[in-house]
């Protein structure tokens, strides 16, 4: 992948504070933030999966 995203925060979001993960909140060192869906063709979700493959862990929801 030739686009690089450096994450500073990555954590799950649950539906109404329950146990079902519905999206992943992220922040980047470029000042970007958002809620990424679990869609394998979404560029942010792809980057998060690569970040996880590098040994990082997605934080549990608050």
């Amino acid at each position, binding site marked *: 992948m*030739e*686009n*690089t*995203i*450096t994450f500073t925060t990555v954590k799950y*979001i649950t*539906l*109404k*504070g329950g146990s079902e993960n*519905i*999206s992943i*909140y992220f922040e*980047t*060192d*470029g000042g*970007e*933030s*958002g*809620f*990424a*869906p*679990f*869609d394998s*063709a*979404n*560029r*942010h*979700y792809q980057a998060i999966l690569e970040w996880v493959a590098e040994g990082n862990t997605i934080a549990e929801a608050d």
Partner: protein
Amino acid sequence: MTKAAELAKMGEVLTNSQIGGRRNIVINGGMQVAQRSSSAVTGIGASDGYFTCDRWNFNTNGNSAGRLTMSQASDGPSGFANCLKLECTTADTSIAAAERFFIEQKLEGQDVQQLKKGTSDAEKITISFYVKGHDSATYTVGLYEGTSGRKIAATFPVTTSWVRQTVTFDGDTSGVIPDNNTAQLHLRFYLHAGSNYTSGTLGTSWNADGNTTQISSDGNSFFESTSATFFLTGVQLEVGSQATPFEHRSFGEELALCQRYYQQSYAHGTVAGTATNTNRVIRFVDATQSYAGHWIAFKTEMRVAATGTPYSPGTGTVNKIRSDSADHPAVFGQSATHGMHAYANNSSIGTSNGLNLHYKADAEL
């Protein structure tokens, strides 16, 4: 051009099936659409991103110290109201080997099947564009195909006047492009590169030689001085060996094409995070709720389920949704290609409040 030459060219165009609608595969080649910002964005250089004109990505690596300002400018050639303008604000004349930046448009595999790449019938590809700069310079334009890693490139000159440049690449009989919705063909304008990308002989025929033949070593660096500028518009990529006139499409057509990849509630050109009620999404809450929300129906079907970012219209604060007089924590939950769900996250919204929201939705390649 003589009449005979004109007829010969016309015959070639007809033979290549270049007459007819929808010739230009590039989206927003005329730089009309700039949803994220129609004003200048400063300090670009440290991170990749889409900053002004839709579909045109700034891609960098190697940590160059060079910085630039990007804008949608009105200084286009005759017939073009808009162009993409780059201005160098911090020079970088000590180019490390791994440095590189380019402006690119990524194209979905399903949108370039007509190139017949990877088959014995592979079509020639012609790229045309209008360009100018602050001084005479040479840069590299190229195609990169992601699945097989194959690429091809050519140099082009820039002068202080608008000139239409044309490059025709042979069809590539290797490297079939998958018929899907992911980034497959990349059209790139390389403007700065270190030796990791320039140490080989420029690959002017399709190759999978790796990075060293990607960019010409004879080219200039955009970051060579703070007087450097680069203007681009009228970008067209079409099947065939001739550059046909630029295919002008209406603003509405281009906007809808761009919104497959990015859309926002803000008015066109308004930066996300601006405090404004214009174009906000609103509904009324009839009873106290802790998870009051909106289902946002997208203006056009997006490429994939989108990444959503909410903003308070009242303050412009990110990750907030606004009642009549206060911001509340907000999240985007379920997202689909046709819409997404935003709601106040366990924060009480009182009876008879408005629930106000701005958003951006990103399904970029």
